[in-house]
């Protein structure tokens, strides 16, 4: 052991976290090195000083003031119970808070440069992620893990009477997608189940599992949900077919790798936005360790995103003034209201149609967004459901195990 190593070992020893073998090694070194003995005394003195700083208790009346603030929130919440109900519905839909960026279909293919999306998301790969996002990230993690959410997904599967709409919608899907999806009779609710089955048995699925999901509003006709379901099935098949071309999860070691993978998926599927969620876990449990989005920006995207953001911010500000919905639920509710408001905000009729389809949960045949869940663990391990998104279909998945159970 040299003196440089010893200084680090001294710190760990003083913190009570140096393993016994290293402690013996350190003691041998200290016996021979006076400089390091002095160094240890200096470190010890400093730690002692910090530890002896006086303990500052909370101010007098802190709990009482806080209780009053919480009670005010609660009573406000009771006045807005209907909001809570809508929020709960929205929660079951599990709309991404960033849903607003996902609705514009790629208008051209010449802008294929890989934009690493928002820096905020990239920062989640670093030690020092923006703190303002942390709570939200925890909420998102919780939503990803939630068995309740996974259970909610099958509700949006296609009802049988929607077969006609399924066939019509399939005409709009990319040719390659249809070829991969198989005969039209497989499309719809059944195809969803098939895809899911493959997802759980195909070794390639250790890599990626993709799907997209509509937001089935309560007044939405079943046919729209059916179309969404079918579209998701196609998207899943497309991605699965191309999964072999993507980097192996073991090889994904950096944000750049993930972004490149997302760009590849976007190119293959012709999607505007690809969300990538990277997790780690075992036995179906899931902890999100990073999240990125690949996004192709163009003028139409920028314009519609701004409209969406403005509407969402406005609704969210009102909600936070007057209700005690959780941030997650308030965000979802605000997103939904913003989506409702958006068609009026956009002057161009053709764009309105896109928005109406994309944001009201009445999706076009091909989804605008794909979410990918990458779980760097043995390929055959079960992975929980993908994120829920507007503009596509639902993929049934095993409920994630709750690590708290």
């Amino acid at each position, binding site marked *: 052991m040299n003196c440089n190593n010893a200084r680090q070992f001294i710190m760990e020893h003083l913190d009570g976290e140096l393993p016994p073998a290293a402690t013996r090694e350190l003691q041998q070194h200290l016996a021979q090195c006076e400089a390091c003995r002095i160094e240890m005394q200096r470190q010890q003195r400093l*730690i002692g*000083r*910090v530890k002896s700083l006086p303990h500052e*208790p*909370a101010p007098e009346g*802190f709990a009482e003031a806080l209780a009053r603030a*919480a009670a005010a929130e609660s009573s406000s919440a009771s006045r807005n119970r209907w909001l809570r109900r809508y929020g709960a519905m929205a929660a079951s839909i599990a709309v991404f808070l960033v849903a607003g960026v996902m609705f514009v279909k790629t208008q051209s293919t010449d802008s294929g440069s890989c934009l690493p999306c928002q820096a905020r998301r990239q920062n989640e790969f670093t030690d020092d992620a923006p*703190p303002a996002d942390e709570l939200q990230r925890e909420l998102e993690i919780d939503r990803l893990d939630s068995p309740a959410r996974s259970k909610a997904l099958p509700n949006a599967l296609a009802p049988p009477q929607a077969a006609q709409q399924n066939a019509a919608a399939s005409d709009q899907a990319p040719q390659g997608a249809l070829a991969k999806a198989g005969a039209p009779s497989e499309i719809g609710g059944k195809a969803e189940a098939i895809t899911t089955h493959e997802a759980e048995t195909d070794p390639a699925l250790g890599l990626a599992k993709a799907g997209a999901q509509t937001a089935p509003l309560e007044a939405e006709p079943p046919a729209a949900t059916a179309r969404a379901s079918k579209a998701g099935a196609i998207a899943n098949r497309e991605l699965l077919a191309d999964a072999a071309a993507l980097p192996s999860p073991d090889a994904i070691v950096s944000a750049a790798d993930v972004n490149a993978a997302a760009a590849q998926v976007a190119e293959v599927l012709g999607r505007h936005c690809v969300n990538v969620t990277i997790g780690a876990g075992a036995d179906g449990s899931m902890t999100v360790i990073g999240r990125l989005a690949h996004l192709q920006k163009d003028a139409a995207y920028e314009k519609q995103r701004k409209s969406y953001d403005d509407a969402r911010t406005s609704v969210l500000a009102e909600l936070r003034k007057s209700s005690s919905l959780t941030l997650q639920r308030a965000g979802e509710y605000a997103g939904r209201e913003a989506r409702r408001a958006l068609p009026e905000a956009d002057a161009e009729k053709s764009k309105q149609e896109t928005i109406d389809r994309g944001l009201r949960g009445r999706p076009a045949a091909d989804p605008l967004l794909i979410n990918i869940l990458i779980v760097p663990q043995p390929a055959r391990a079960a992975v929980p459901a993908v994120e829920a998104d507007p503009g596509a279909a639902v993929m049934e998945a095993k409920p994630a195990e709750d690590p708290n159970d």
Partner: protein
Amino acid sequence: MNDATDEAVLIQRCRRGDNDAFGMLVRRHQDGLFNGIYRMVGDYHDAADIAQDVFLKAFRAIDSFRGGASFYTWLYRIAVNTCISRRRSLAARKANLHVPLDTGDDAPGCDPPASQPGPQQQAQSREDCERLEQALGCLPEDYRIAIVLKDIQGYKYAEMAALLGCSVGTVKSRLFRARETLRGILE
């Protein structure tokens, strides 16, 4: 009923909207949390403000607490994040927070005097603590948080890593550099 069970019951009640249960959780953790926040931000009123914010955030998001870590650690994680974001927003307003240190005589440290300190010793001790608080305030934010988590809150390296979302190696090297820097400021 032990403390953990008791706390789980309080959390359940809190989820059902029981404000009394929330009050009990607050009283249980307010002092530890406030002290940690105070040491991170260095300002008593800011600390009170942030502590209130943290508890209200926790109250609103109680449904998302899953019990993987202790409730206090979950609270503390919210606190760390809130402190960081709050400090960034206050950075411009409090540009003079990092005042130059009075690097006077060697300080004997903040260790409590053995017994019945005289007025002079008490004054010296108070002055030492003030110097140390100032020095902590001069540290980069991640260094200060590392020191507070370890030496004031008593977390282990692994717990700090989970709380800060980084590796144990990062925690160790950050803590080592933090103490080196602090010592450099004080000496």
